[in-house]
């Protein structure tokens, strides 16, 4: 029955950790059930902005019932800019956790790539913290030397960095970092911009590697009803009865072979 609701989460702390990138801890009931790779819908307190912003979960602390979100402010007068102004003690309406999350358990006894690019980096942190595998290779890509979350990654696995401007690590993208360091994996988890995910999907298919990618699309409801955030599925989808899957409900994480991107 009516087990879920929009909730006023309390902000515990907020800081800017790179240009336009903010890290916020919130106290929320959503923490109890949250898994890495899931997201929460965050709502503004401005009545002219109605739609939730789907924000990926960066860290989960079940003991204190809190979640960390790391997000990018997308511009002036945006909802995310409003979020960035919240301070400890303020409240923010949220719903979550939403979506399926990464199947971390599939990495047991395997060599894994945990790949994140840009604002797709944050959900990889909780995955890295929870994952138990034979070889945890965290490959994260940034624009420049502002390699946010890097120290936290280094406490949770082998870290390989790529930067678009070459200021740190491999110059280029995460695929370039894999090649430069001669890395191999039996399973891949990735979140980032579509061109990056497309390259990772192609690499996984060429090398016969099981690969899970987290997709993003404009959403309205966030709970699977409005059919705004669909992606194309390879096979006819059971729910939609067409070649569309709902990113918010059936994803955001998909087996790369299941989807066309």
């Amino acid at each position: 029955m009516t087990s879920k609701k929009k909730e006023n989460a309390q902000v515990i702390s907020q800081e800017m950790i790179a240009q336009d990138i903010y890290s916020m801890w919130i106290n929320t009931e959503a923490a109890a059930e949250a898994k890495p790779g899931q997201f929460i819908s965050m709502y503004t307190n401005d009545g002219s902005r109605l739609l939730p912003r789907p924000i990926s979960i960066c860290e989960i602390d079940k003991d204190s019932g809190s979640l960390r979100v790391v997000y990018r402010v997308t511009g002036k007068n945006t909802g995310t800019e409003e979020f960035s102004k919240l301070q400890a003690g303020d409240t923010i309406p949220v719903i979550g956790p939403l979506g399926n999350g990464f199947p971390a358990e599939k990495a047991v006894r395997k060599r894994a790539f945990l790949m994140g690019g840009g604002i797709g980096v944050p959900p990889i942190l909780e995955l890295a913290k929870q994952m138990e595998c034979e070889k945890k290779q965290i490959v994260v890509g940034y624009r420049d030397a502002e390699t946010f979350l890097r120290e936290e990654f280094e406490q949770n696995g082998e870290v390989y960095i790529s930067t678009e401007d070459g200021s740190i690590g491999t110059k280029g993208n995460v695929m370039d970092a894999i090649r430069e360091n001669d890395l191999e994996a039996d399973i891949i988890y990735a979140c980032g911009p579509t061109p990056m995910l497309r390259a990772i999907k192609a690499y996984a298919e060429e090398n016969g590697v099981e690969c899970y990618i987290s997709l993003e699309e404009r959403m309205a409801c966030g709970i699977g009803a409005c059919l705004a955030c669909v992606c194309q599925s390879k096979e006819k989808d059971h729910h939609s009865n067409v070649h569309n899957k709902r990113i918010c409900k059936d994803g955001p994480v998909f087996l790369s072979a299941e989807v066309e991107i």
Partner: protein
Amino acid sequence: MDMKVNIAGVEWKNPVTVASGTFGSGAEFADYVDLNRLGAVTTKGVANIPWAGNPTPRVAEVYGGMMNAVGLQNPGIDVFCERDIPFLRQYDTKIIVNVCGKSTEDYCEVVERLAGEDVDMLEINISCPNVKEGGIAFGQDPKAAEAITKAVKKYAKQPVIMKLSPNVTSIAEMAKAVEAGGADAVSLINTITGMKIDINRRTFVLANRTGGVSGPAIHPIAVRMVYEAANAVKLPVIGMGGIATAEDAVEMILAGASAVSVGTANFHDPGVTMDIVDGIGEYMKQQGFETVSEMIGIVR
């Protein structure tokens, strides 16, 4: 106090339903809403065969609302009948099936199929602005609207609600046309066609270029059109367009709506319909209304 309303012979326990397309077939909202407390559930539009809908992006936020160009993605009537009707029948609410099509034959095929199903009302979508064929093509010309109403009425076993578009010069004329065609009720307004441009990418935000604007921003337009339609025809009017609070719903009823649909507000708060049902009851108590019908269209 009694919140029951009678819409074309079907008794709802209260005057609140949801706008087609904002609520799926109810399953996704069942965690957030007690579906038993809705007067009716209006389902996402369904066609004779599965439709894939439009490319993404399908939605954009606009000031005080949103735009969508989902393009009536739906699983087709077979899956709908097998899966969605039995799901909704578990609840004590009325089922209104929204029907879409590309041609008169498509609409009639779905309506005929539903004649044998356990659903309470049909809502015929002749007002979707986001599909190339059908949809709004029937909803902008009074003659075409009358003709399709007549056609579906031949096959319909349940009362027929014609869903009207605001993208017309005279909503009164459209309401009269479907009344002449034999409609049992009208619902309005569907979304208002709009456009949003991304000034940094210098292109359209929606893949479809245009989309339907909904949300509180369009509420005053909807109130005006509900008022005009309600004063033009004898049919019950289901009013919708930007209803986000009980006050918005009451406003629509005072303008002439016999019932209301909540749409985009479901995206802002999936539980909002419960607050609206409660809030209408509180208003009635405060203002001394014994029945909803005492309130309908009293502002003239």
